[in-house]
């Protein structure tokens, strides 16, 4: 016989979890107590449960393993909600363990009770409320299995405190059979053949690759497919890093802040090959005008993603890697000289550009691209900082771009960077931040310092909630309602107060030196880049327009 908490420790060991993020409270004390005797499982204490959730998420995205976070009942659990929703949107494998009030008290509005399985049902892949300690092992093994397989996602296991303390001799299952869960992974060969034929016949094809390529580990196969079939590749935000940005076949990112040439290529194409991407509205703009002359192939592991936003001609349900293995065999080289020349023309005519003078945020990102090693992990917050990073940093390797794409969660970057740094201790990890976003989880500087993590935070400090200010400038007559950040702290002093290093940079000539110094310091480091206050992210497709209706940023 052993306690429920001990079963949890067994389950963590079975999953080879050597690190987790946990914030204590009354209903999880038995679990913390059991972890006290498990020196092989390192407990990282965040300063806020949301931070802990994002750390587990950054950990999972950087190394591909399941991230684990623990929080107490009530407010601890509700503080996890944003982190779960963030992970759910971007298909990140997480297991969240929450404490719950005693089984007898559930439903009685007990102290620190929250119906967390009810609250998180729409933002998790699945969740469990464990009412009996004999079921705990099954639930935990199932939770890890569900989180990691198929389209990955967060799974929450809610454990009442008396269940953690109760004894059981039911052994922990090594695997579970779930009648309602059999992920489709092998694509249908007939469909793959039809897809290959369509690619071979196409005159003006474009591959549109998303986060699914990274999750399934199909980046090499994507490159083979593109080179063998001679197809240009554009990626989504979540797909950055899945195709080398410097390849001549690369079109960079598409969509609202995508490159001119990626959006034009899509609009003029006769075949869109969507791989592990889901036709998000930030990609398609006006769906009725998206790729009007193209047939659409859609490879996705989630049957519900297919034909959800856009009518698909050739659907293939399956894991991107397994499908691409077969697809690569079936395509052949086609010259497509006119098509590639046309794209080359657009690239020359409409490259990504920005104005010079002063300290431009885009310049900071370009310098970071040069200063950071190829395998550096770049996390971002949300807003202009995120888009400039996507546009100007040339990602070369999968799992080096860690950003909240689907939910767009400000405050994600710093904790995610901490998780990524713990997952990959030998690598450089940088959080590109806005002065707004960084203040949403800035308390996690303490976690970084406590654990001696050499995370570098690059604040692109424009004194505004820049992305919203940009929309106000362009579409609301510059009525800056609630977007001016007066009263920002001195970020350098703040860093120092936390025991980190800090440096302010106000001139372009100092950017590279500051980056080199921070990256070499081996310390948690905050760089406060005081950039042009009203710089905009261009090009831009106004929300709801066709994606070739781009404004700004054209020379």
């Amino acid at each position, binding site marked *: 016989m052993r306690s429920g908490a001990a079963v949890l420790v067994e389950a963590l060991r079975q999953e080879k979890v050597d690190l987790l993020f946990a914030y204590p409270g009354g209903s999880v004390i038995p679990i913390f107590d059991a972890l006290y005797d498990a020196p092989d499982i390192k407990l990282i204490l965040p300063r806020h449960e949301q931070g802990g959730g994002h750390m587990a998420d950054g950990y999972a995205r950087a190394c591909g393993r399941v991230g684990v976070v623990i929080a107490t009942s009530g407010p601890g659990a509700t503080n996890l909600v944003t982190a779960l929703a963030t992970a759910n949107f971007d298909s990140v494998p997480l297991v969240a363990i929450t404490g719950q009030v005693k089984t007898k008290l559930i439903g009685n509005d007990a102290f620190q009770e929250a119906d967390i399985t009810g609250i998180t*049902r729409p933002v998790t892949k*699945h969740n469990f*409320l464990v009412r009996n300690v004999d079921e705990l092992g099954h639930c935990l093994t199932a939770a890890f299995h569900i989180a990691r397989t198929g389209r990955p996602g967060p799974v929450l296991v809610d454990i009442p405190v008396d269940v953690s303390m109760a004894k059981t001799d039911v052994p922990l299952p090594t695997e579970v059979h779930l*009648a*309602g*869960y*059999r*992920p*489709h992974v092998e694509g249908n060969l007939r469909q793959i053949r039809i897809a290959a034929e369509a690619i071979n016949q196409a005159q003006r094809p474009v591959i549109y690759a998303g986060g699914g390529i990274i999750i399934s580990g199909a980046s090499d196969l994507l490159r083979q497919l593109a080179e063998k079939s001679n197809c240009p590749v554009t990626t989504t935000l979540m797909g950055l890093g899945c195709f080398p940005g410097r390849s001549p076949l690369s079109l960079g990112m598409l969509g609202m802040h995508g490159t001119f040439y990626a959006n034009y290529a899509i609009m003029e194409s006769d075949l869109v090959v969507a791989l592990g991407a889901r036709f998000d509205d930030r990609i398609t703009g006006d769906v009725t005008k998206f790729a009007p002359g193209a047939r659409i192939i859609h490879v996705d592991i989630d049957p*519900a993603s297919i034909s959800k936003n856009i009518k698909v001609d050739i659907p293939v349900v399956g894991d991107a890697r397994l499908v691409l293995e077969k697809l690569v065999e079936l395509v052949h080289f086609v010259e497509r000289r006119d098509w590639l020349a046309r794209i080359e023309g657009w690239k020359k005519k409409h490259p990504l550009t920005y104005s010079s003078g002063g300290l431009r945020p885009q310049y900071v990102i370009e310098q970071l691209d040069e200063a950071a090693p190829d395998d550096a992990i770049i996390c971002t917050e949300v807003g202009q900082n995120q888009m400039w990073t996507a546009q100007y940093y040339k990602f070369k390797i999968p799992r080096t771009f860690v950003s909240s794409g689907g939910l767009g969660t400000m405050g994600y970057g710093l904790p995610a960077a901490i998780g990524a740094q713990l997952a990959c201790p030998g690598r450089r990890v940088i959080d590109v931040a806005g002065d707004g976003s960084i203040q949403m989880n800035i308390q996690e500087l303490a976690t970084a310092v406590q654990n001696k993590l050499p995370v570098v935070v690059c604040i692109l400090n424009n004194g505004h909630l820049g992305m919203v200010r940009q929309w106000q400038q362009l579409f609301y007559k510059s009525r800056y309602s609630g977007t001016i950040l007066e009263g920002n702290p001195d970020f350098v002093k703040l860093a120092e107060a936390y025991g980190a290093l800090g440096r302010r940079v106000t001139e372009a000539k100092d950017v590279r030196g500051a980056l080199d110094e921070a990256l070499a310091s081996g310390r948690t480091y905050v760089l406060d880049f005081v950039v042009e206050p009203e710089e905009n992210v261009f090009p831009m497709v106004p929300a709801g327009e066709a994606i070739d209706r781009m404004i700004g940023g054209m020379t």
Partner: protein
Amino acid sequence: MTESKQVISAVVENRPGVLAHISGLFASRGYNIDSLAVGETENPLYSRITVVARGDEAILEQIRKQLAKVIDVIRVTELSGQNFVERDLMLIKVNAPAAKRGEILELAEVFEGKIVDIGVKHIMIEISGPEQKIEAFVELVRPYGIHELVRTGRVAMLRGVSGRPARAAESGEEKKSKN
């Protein structure tokens, strides 16, 4: 695209929270649901949910896929277009003064209704059958005055036998794909 109605049947785990999950899914995605009926199946571990949904084919396809995606949903079958039996059960309390009583009883008989309660001024009738039959009856008795009416919502089942009896989860209906 044109709107149509579809009868979707799902076998789900018989566990607290599953119905809340499914109704929450319909609500949060804004699907139009005409009726939803739940009950245990021959296997007490499973329940069957019968949903009548409305929308164009793209929406109906999404409803089926989103349902199938729920981990506690074991199997989703679209019954429309297949050979199936559907029933709806109604209890209806009709205003029935002595003078009209005979007519109402006659109507009930034609519709194979059962009289389940009679008072001085009313009759309660139980009727089951396909939706059109129920609705036709309601229209016929409406002129007498309806006090109260309650319906179970549709339940439905395919004709014929497929698969082994006891192992509902593995019988050969629409294969469930998951992610």
